[in-house]
């Protein structure tokens, strides 16, 4: 059975259960799912025919199993994190959301791929849309519309592929490539198509942002791995990585900053998967795994800060290290992880990606992005936690379940960091193994961090968070204006005049008659 189904079924059960029992049960269900993914045998199963298609609901390979493991693990962590903070609606929707993304990893045909792809969008739309935060009405509208554009192009791509090849098997696509690129590009927040991401992840409640951060974009990356074999995408990845980090540096609102970092980190994965060498792909996928962990951990840390202080803008924060020592420690681990510090997981996957390619543009591009990453997390950690600013009020204590969840994630990060061979087992790297802890590699990983440290010292005043006006460069809402204009035009033509309507009828009759007679 596909482990994601456990979540989908669980969603139905949880909907009818109240109170503390629901929270306990939800942890139990995610534990079961985790064990199921762990013991999942490779190969295919659970096929049946639906309409004219052979549906394969279970098709496991090493990569999907690895991603599935981290998805299931993070789901457990996120559910522990939100223990006793959730309501019925949240549990139900998160379960469908996580369940559909987990199911999607293990399906073997385009048809069910599309269905779960859409189910994710629908459930996350309702997850984002929250009446206590009126702005999410607009942002979630934007989110759903944009993802629907992606879904429509995915659907069209699938139809082209299906009609031309006659097979619905999930493979690298041959037909309708531009549509697949658009679909995947929107899902994984390719730069230029990323606009839905920051405004949503920064405006939802902190529990929701923890769950959202891990899945939507990562499923996009998995989609890219399964569907697209184009090498030029790697350059797009570098651009995404650099521009994403530049946007991130500007932000002072922590979750917005983290959101742009998702975009930037996705750039790394695109590079790794895009170059198509075995090391590169392994690096890209492993980076996905790592990113789920440390980005999720960062969202948990800032979530704890929001829970504790009700503030999330770096302008208002500071000096939290003394007040929230454990949370700060986790923050430091996550920051070092994302910066690629040796003996933490980011180091491993960044190294693999860089070893996977010999193209200088890609390598130097990632180097620059690496400096930006280190810089912005120094900013977060210093201004949020370590600088002296005594007047931040602590309103409640962080819950123990939050600390446990963050501890779980940190633990796995460190394990991957010091025992990379565990993760390597999922890939066929052949003889091209990398010795991660040789001095030259450690030095290479430390370089961007040290450079960033120097820049941080020199440009302290520029980097120091200060309120800045938002510039709206978003082009897409104008499409909506176009639709408004057209609709107005039509309703001016249809003005309620009966004689005009009858004229239309007669005109239609005549035109149709002439057209069909010729």
């Amino acid at each position, binding site marked *: 059975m596909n482990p994601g189904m456990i979540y989908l079924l669980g969603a139905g059960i949880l909907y009818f259960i109240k109170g503390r029992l629901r929270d306990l049960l939800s942890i139990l269900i995610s534990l079961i799912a985790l064990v199921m993914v762990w013991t999942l045998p490779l190969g295919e199963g659970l096929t049946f025919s639906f309409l004219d298609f052979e549906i394969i609901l279970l098709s496991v390979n090493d990569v999907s199993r690895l991603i599935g493991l981290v998805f299931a693990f993070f789901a457990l962590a996120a559910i522990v994190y939100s223990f006793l903070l959730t309501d019925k609606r949240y549990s139900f929707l998160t379960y469908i959301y996580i369940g559909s993304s987990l199911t999607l990893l293990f399906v073997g045909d385009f048809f069910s791929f599309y269905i779960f792809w*859409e189910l994710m969008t629908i459930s996350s739309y309702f997850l984002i849309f929250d*009446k206590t935060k009126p702005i999410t009405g607009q942002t979630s509208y934007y989110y*759903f519309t944009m993802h629907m554009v992606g879904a429509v192009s995915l659907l069209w791509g699938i139809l082209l592929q299906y009609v031309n090849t006659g097979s619905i098997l999930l493979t690298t696509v041959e037909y309708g490539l531009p549509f697949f690129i658009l679909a995947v590009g929107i899902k994984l927040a390719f730069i230029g198509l990323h606009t839905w991401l920051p405004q949503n992840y920064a405006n939802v409640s902190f529990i929701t942002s923890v769950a959202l951060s891990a899945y939507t974009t990562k499923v996009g990356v998995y989609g890219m791995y399964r569907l697209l074999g184009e090498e030029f995408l790697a350059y797009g990845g570098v651009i995404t990585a650099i521009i994403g980090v530049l946007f991130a540096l500007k932000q002072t609102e922590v979750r917005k900053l983290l959101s742009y970092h998702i975009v930037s980190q996705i750039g790394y994965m695109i590079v790794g998967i895009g170059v198509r060498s075995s090391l590169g792909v392994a690096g890209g996928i492993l980076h996905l795994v790592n990113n789920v962990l440390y980005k999720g951990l960062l969202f948990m840390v800032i979530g704890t800060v929001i829970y504790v202080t009700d503030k999330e803008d770096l302008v208002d924060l500071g000096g939290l290290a003394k007040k929230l020592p454990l949370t700060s420690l986790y923050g430091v681990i996550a920051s070092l992880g994302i910066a690629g510090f040796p003996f933490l997981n980011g180091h491993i996957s960044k190294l693999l990606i860089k070893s996977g390619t010999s193209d200088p543009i890609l390598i130097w591009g990632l180097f620059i992005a690496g400096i930006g990453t280190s810089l912005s997390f120094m900013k977060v950690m210093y201004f949020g936690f370590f600088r002296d600013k005594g007047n931040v009020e602590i309103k409640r204590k962080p819950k123990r379940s939050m600390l446990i969840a963050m501890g779980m994630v940190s633990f796995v990060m460190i394990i991957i960091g010091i025992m990379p061979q565990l993760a390597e087992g999922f890939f066929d790297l052949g003889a091209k193994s990398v010795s991660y802890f040789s001095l030259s590699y450690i030095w290479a990983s430390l370089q961007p961090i040290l450079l960033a440290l120097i820049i941080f010292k020199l440009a302290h005043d520029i980097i120091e968070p200060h309120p800045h006006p938002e510039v709206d460069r978003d082009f897409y809402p104008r499409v909506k204006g176009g639709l408004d204009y057209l609709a107005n035009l039509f309703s001016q033509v249809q003005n309620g005049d009966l004689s005009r*309507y009858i004229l239309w009828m007669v005109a*239609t*009759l005549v035109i149709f008659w002439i057209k069909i007679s010729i």
Partner: protein
Amino acid sequence: MDLLVLLIVLPLFTAFSLGVISYFCERFMLPVIIGSSLLHLVLTIIVAAQAFVEPIGYNLGGWDSSIGIVLIMDSFAAIMASIISILSFLAIIYSIKYIKENILKYYILSFLLVTGTMGMVLTGDLFNLYVFFEVTSIASYSLVAIKKEDESIEGAFRYLMIGSFSGLFLLLGIITIYLSLGTLNLAQIALSFGELDQFTIISILVLMIVGFGTKFALIPLHTWLPDSYPKAPAPFNLLSSALVIKSFLYALMRIVYTLYGVDLLRDIGLEAILIYWGVFTFLIAHTMAYQQDNIKRLLGYSSIAQIGYIVVGFGVLSHKGIVGAIYHIINHSIMKGALFLALGIFIYYFNAHKIKDLKGLGFLVPRAGVIFVIGSLAIVGLPPFNGFISKWLIIEGAIEGGYLLAAFMIPVGSLISLTYYLKVFIMLYSNPKEGWAKKRVAWQLEIPALILAFFCILLGLFPQYPLYLVERAPALLLDSQNYISVFLGG
């Protein structure tokens, strides 16, 4: 099969007897209404089950079939008949609570409406088709005006004027046929239709399509629909959107396919015209729906758009296209039914006609909110709901027919429809207005809506069962010889 004729006579008889019953013993009225529509439902299912096995023909009164009354029920008609009787039963249940004024007139007209649509679906000759066409139309005009407010009377008047023109065109077409062939029986016309000259053939086709097209609202013939919806009672909106326009569409497709046959239609070039007309219809209708602020108008435009999809499916003139189209007819009836009934609940308890009136109602009448959401997601064509399956089939049919552009426009249309349904969602789940409290919804209103919403999901998850029945329907359409042989012996 004598039961077949009961399907038409029962609602007709009920409609007439209601007046008498209400005059003499009013307390029996409600049981009679419910009993009659329940009996109708049972009868329909019994007859339809037989028709799926083998088409049923029935010659009323044993007259000569060239002028007599002839009924026929094949799989397609059986599907339509089932939709009509199931949905009208649900609408009647709903009306018990919903309708508070002009009760007697409302029920009489509703039963006449059922008679008319059922007649159009079952009839095998053009004369009766015209009679039932007018019965349906007149019942609809009066139901639109039943509230006696200025707006509803204006809407009904427009509907009446435009409807009369369409009736005129249809009548012209039928007269042309009768003058040139001397018979009104569909099967007999089909036999000798090839002897007619090209001009007559085309004239009949044009008159029929414009005549019926006005009734099932192809753009730019749709103008009556958005004006007549807003003030009409919600159960009538359901009947109109789910049954009335569908049975007009059914009648046209039956005539066109039976008389002309696929080959002749291809020669005339109707394939491309129908497909692009459908695409034009749904693109414009979606765009118009986008800027409506009255929800019933919005849903009305959405119905027009769905008709566009169905016409594309029929226009492909292939097995797959027709299956998709018929499945979409079923699905659209169900989802639009769910939407209108949910909307009816909002109107009944909160008098919410505009989108902005819906503010927060998703929390005040939660189940109605969920039903509305399910219906909208289904009509947008998102999996795992039923609309997705039928749209997929139509797209596939269009691609196989070689109409790539038209096929591509179908998901684009869905995209636009999402943008306006999302507007409703945002209002539905915003903070409720001050002072509004949760309401308990009466079961008469809630149960029918819940059933329809449930079927939205069911038909999406298990499409193989309905499709098993739908798959048989195109046989009599694609090969008119099969249809003829039901009457004249093969």
